[in-house]
């Protein structure tokens, strides 16, 4: 009798664990995976939500391959009162359940961002499906247009396309890889303010002519959609969208973004152009990385923040000039000095732009000031985020240039 009871019990336990999953099982064919969400100001309702779906290769009849997705994607747009109600409407329209677990990018239009986006960010952060590592992009165009213009040419999987496109900041420094979790944390922080990736659609009509600038300043002076590139890929992410609280207040160019990364210790490597000390009309390209971590200190002098940044870089010269000898110590020293003063000027300009023009601390300098206060009340009373606009800065850059690459002299 006991053995019989035990056997029944074992069968029941076996069924419980093996068949339990069938209770609310959902097959892949019942789900629609969104790889990006776009949020715009609505025309017939409060907001316009756009969802870019990856089309599974089987359902699109693709030739297959190692990937489960094809190059194709589709964008569905809906005017709605909230993100969740928009998703519900899309659910009913496409007859599949929208799933955000593979969403790699949240694109918000500049127009909406300047009015405040906390409501949407809170909703997205509260969504369990959405990964905290998906990127936040502020598009200079409509978010729906941004999604419709994403045409992966060098990547077959649309979700991976976003991942790789946004990772380029690691070797260009022209934008920052801002994730939803960072954006949300910064928005609620008392030591810093939020910032996001600046994106846009690059077209002939949006190209900017910066020929009036010196040659070494040209490539860093563009923002998203402005650089004179001709390619099939329509999207361009360059620069940083600057927020005060939850409102967009300004934009940084590619070079300013690089300076931002240098100051906040998020810089990996980049190629920068500095003036050639021996020929004012030409430039020298330097490949730079950190020699050691940047040091930042904040002193409060008569209630005004005094911020000191020490940045140590190391690099090699990538360009080659017939008249220059990169094995000569004096030449290298001269180039180092030019690089230092050029970067100091760029970084100071970026810092004063954030403090005086945008009045927002996106460099998280508050974290270097907070240890000067004993209690939370003292810190809140100091009103760092407001006081930041009174800051003045001292920037010191030390660049060590090793040599050229394969050749040191022609």
């Amino acid at each position: 009798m006991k053995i019989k009871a035990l056997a029944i019990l074992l069968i029941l336990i076996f069924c419980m664990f093996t068949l339990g999953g069938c209770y609310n099982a959902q097959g892949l064919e019942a789900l629609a995976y969104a790889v990006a969400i776009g949020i715009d100001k609505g025309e017939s309702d409060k907001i316009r939500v756009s969802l870019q779906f990856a089309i599974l290769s089987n359902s699109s009849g693709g030739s297959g391959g190692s990937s489960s997705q094809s190059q194709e994607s589709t964008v569905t747009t809906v005017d709605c009162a909230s993100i969740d109600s928009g998703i519900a409407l899309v659910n009913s329209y496409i007859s599949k359940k929208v799933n955000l677990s593979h969403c790699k990018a949240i694109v918000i239009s500049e127009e909406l961002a300047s009015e405040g986006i906390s409501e949407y960010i809170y909703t997205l952060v509260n969504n369990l499906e959405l990964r905290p590592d998906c990127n936040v992009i502020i598009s200079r165009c409509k978010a729906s247009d941004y999604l419709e213009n994403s045409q992966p040419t060098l990547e077959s999987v649309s979700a991976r396309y976003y991942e790789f496109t946004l990772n380029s900041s690691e070797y260009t420094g022209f934008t920052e890889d801002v994730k939803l979790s960072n954006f949300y944390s910064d928005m609620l922080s008392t030591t810093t303010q939020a910032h996001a990736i600046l994106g846009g659609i690059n077209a002939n009509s949006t190209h900017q002519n910066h020929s009036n600038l010196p040659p070494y300043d040209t490539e860093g002076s563009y923002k998203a959609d402005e650089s004179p590139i001709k390619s099939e890929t329509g999207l361009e992410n360059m620069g940083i969208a600057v927020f005060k609280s939850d409102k967009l207040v300004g934009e940084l160019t590619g070079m300013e973004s690089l300076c931002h990364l240098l100051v906040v210790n998020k810089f990996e490597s980049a190629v920068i152009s500095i003036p050639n000390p021996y020929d004012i009309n030409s430039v020298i390209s330097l490949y730079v990385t950190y020699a050691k971590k940047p040091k930042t200190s904040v002193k409060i002098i008569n209630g005004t923040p005094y911020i000191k940044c020490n940045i140590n870089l190391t690099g090699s010269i990538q360009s080659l000039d017939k008249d220059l000898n990169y094995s000569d110590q004096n030449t290298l020293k001269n180039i180092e000095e030019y690089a230092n003063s050029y970067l100091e000027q760029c970084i100071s300009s970026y810092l004063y732009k954030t403090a005086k023009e945008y009045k927002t601390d996106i460099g998280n300098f508050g974290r270097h000031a907070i240890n000067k206060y004993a209690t939370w009340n003292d810190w809140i009373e100091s009103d760092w985020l407001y006081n930041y606009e009174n800051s003045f800065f001292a920037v010191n850059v030390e660049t060590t240039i090793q040599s050229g690459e394969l050749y040191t002299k022609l």
Partner: protein
Amino acid sequence: MNSLQKIGKFEAIALVVIVTINQIIFNLPNTIIINTGSSAWLNVIYISIIAILFCLLICKLFKKFPTQDIVDVSEYLGGKVLKLIIGLLYILFFTFIAGIFLRYMAISLKLIYFEETPIVFLLLLFLVPVIFAIKLGIKSTSQVNLLFTPIVLFSMLIILFSTVKDFVPERIFPILGFGADKTFLIGLNNIFTFSCFAYLYFIIPILKEPKDFKKIAISSIIISAVYLFLSVICLLMMFPFIAFSDEMLSVYLLTRLIEFGKFFQRIDAIFIFVWIISVFSFLSITAEFIARIFKKLTKINNYKEMSYSICAIIFSIALIFNGISDMKFIQNVLLKYIVILVVFVISIIILILANLKHKKENVS
């Protein structure tokens, strides 16, 4: 008690430590941070020192009663009436703790993975193994627990150390958080996170070597304190909003951020699986203790047959709470005072008075 049903040193340490680990999963670090702000790490060091001193005091007070638990001591002090009161108090305490913890975990699981599953099924998922655990006895439960505790501890370390890259150390400032009074005076209330003391009060009679009690108590409290400190400091350095927000599972937020390169991402499911095992252990141990106290009070022969009733009571308590708001009120307000009153006030008074009585009897 049958010597085969007695547990060793490491089994006992694992038994106490798993209680604290479950407290951490149960979001208690968040409660500490909400009360003290950025000084939560300082508060944890402070309450940990007090907990260790308290532990030494308990070891000293139990020296006169080397094979007895708190119920036996209360019988010695106040006879059967006091024994009944303390026994019932602890039965209620353990049942309440198990009930709210069970409901909290079931709600969290429902939110994360089992959106459409009725809560009753999730509650039963946890309670069915508990019935078997009571039937098999404390030895089997604690041995299985010893097997899983290192895995649970290791998984917690992975969570804490794999998020190091995103730490902002300056978030531990302002050093005094919401104020010195909130950190050291009102913050003393946070000692309720060491509710594992309640289990220490009952562990002596089930030890193979009761003389090891001091080693077990000190080791388990130190391990608990280290894990509590690590979890609090990780949460503080990761999330600037943590002192003002209220999450369901703070440690789960950490797991969502874990990634090893581009390949290993979204591995939170592994941690949830480990936590489910740790909840099984915790509920089994707690239910076993309830059964043992009940046996002491009623002197029934086969207390293992009580497993169905005990699980039914825990199940009913878990069903009492209406939703997350009820749970949050209990977690942030009620639980604190219940633990302090039962574990840190009433029990210690009984132990001190029993020692005085013992001393008086010896003198006379």
